[in-house]
């Protein structure tokens, strides 16, 4: 069985979203393909998945034990060799054709939805199908955790245009945009937050950031995180706070393009 995503991820997602079908706006191919691969990987019991694009059925796929076991039906836009596979148990040798098909059907700029139902016929356990991890590799995608060794550094790099300063305990703030006003009072306030004892750190789970706005500087927002026992902070414009928070939350869920 594939270990992506982990059972913990699946349960966390179910707890966060309920079991209803969710609509995903997927602007990029990585997000669209990642959505479908996640849906396949999350199926433990056999399921017939209907993928909808803009509310219209795009394709039907059968998944079991985190594997793609069958292409149930495909649109005319799918490659002919893939349509010839429809209805038959998939084998590993079909990997390239299946990946090419997913790449063609999921180019991005899509409104995707996944509906799940028990399959009409249970899949043949002797034909396990294609592992999602193999599809990831064939599509040139990688789960973010596999390619981002330091999420904090990745965020600082990705959000550089919105960053005003980065603050580590006991160090002077590293100003990203020195022209931006950051008062001495605010610097002191942040250092107080970072100096032990740090009650704010109790709010944070692993890889969480607490973003908040301040009464003293309503135009600015602070993002507090921790590395081990030590907190650290970034300062951004308050208007960018929700966007940076959304990026951070989605970071673990959107696959990244990488070399095959």
């Amino acid at each position, binding site marked *: 069985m594939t270990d992506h995503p982990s059972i913990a991820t699946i349960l*966390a997602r179910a*707890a966060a*979203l309920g079991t209803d079908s969710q609509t995903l706006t997927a602007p990029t191919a990585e997000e669209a393909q990642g959505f479908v691969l996640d849906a396949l990987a999350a199926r433990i019991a056999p399921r017939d998945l209907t993928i909808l694009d803009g509310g219209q059925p795009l394709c039907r796929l059968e998944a079991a034990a985190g594997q793609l076991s069958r292409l149930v039906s495909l649109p005319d836009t799918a490659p002919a060799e893939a349509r010839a596979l429809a209805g038959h148990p998939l084998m590993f040798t079909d990997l390239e054709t299946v990946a090419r098909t997913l790449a063609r059907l999921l180019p991005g700029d899509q409104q995707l939805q996944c509906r799940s139902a028990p399959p009409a016929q249970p899949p043949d356990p002797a034909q396990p199908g294609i592992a999602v991890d193999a599809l990831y590799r064939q599509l040139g995608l990688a789960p973010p955790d596999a390619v981002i060794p330091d999420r904090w550094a990745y965020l600082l790099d990705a959000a550089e245009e919105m960053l005003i300063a980065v603050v580590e305990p006991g160090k002077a703030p590293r100003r990203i945009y020195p022209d931006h006003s950051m008062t001495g009072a605010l610097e002191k306030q942040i250092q107080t937050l970072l100096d032990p004892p740090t009650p704010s750190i109790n709010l944070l789970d692993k890889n969480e950031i607490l973003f*908040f706005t*301040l009464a003293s500087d309503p135009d600015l927002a602070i993002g507090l995180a921790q590395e081990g026992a030590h907190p650290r902070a970034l300062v951004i414009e308050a208007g960018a706070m929700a966007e940076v928070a959304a990026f951070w939350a989605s970071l673990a869920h959107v696959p990244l393009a990488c070399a095959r």
Partner: protein
Amino acid sequence: MTRDDLARFRAGFAHCELVMLADTSAGTVLTFASAIHQGQERLDDLCTTACTLFRSELPVFGLAVLSGPRGSKLFLQSPRDPSEVICAVLGPRADVPTICAALGRLADQESVT
């Protein structure tokens, strides 16, 4: 703000699991609407977080977002009564900026009715 107000709000956004109104002065949950059954413990945890954010030495004012791989939790103080905090629990792919803006409108509406 009624449970129906919160339920309508929640239904308007994919990936919005739970919306809750907490009174941080009393540390109590006033009302909530959720996609799936919520244990009291989870509601109490959210309420405790809201109290820690807005009633401790943390300099938090207005809006706070606790964001991580499991999604985001939004905490917004009511402009009418800052001790009242609207909390929203969102999935990891939620449109946080849009939901934050809508949450602000919901709180503003409440403050003029």
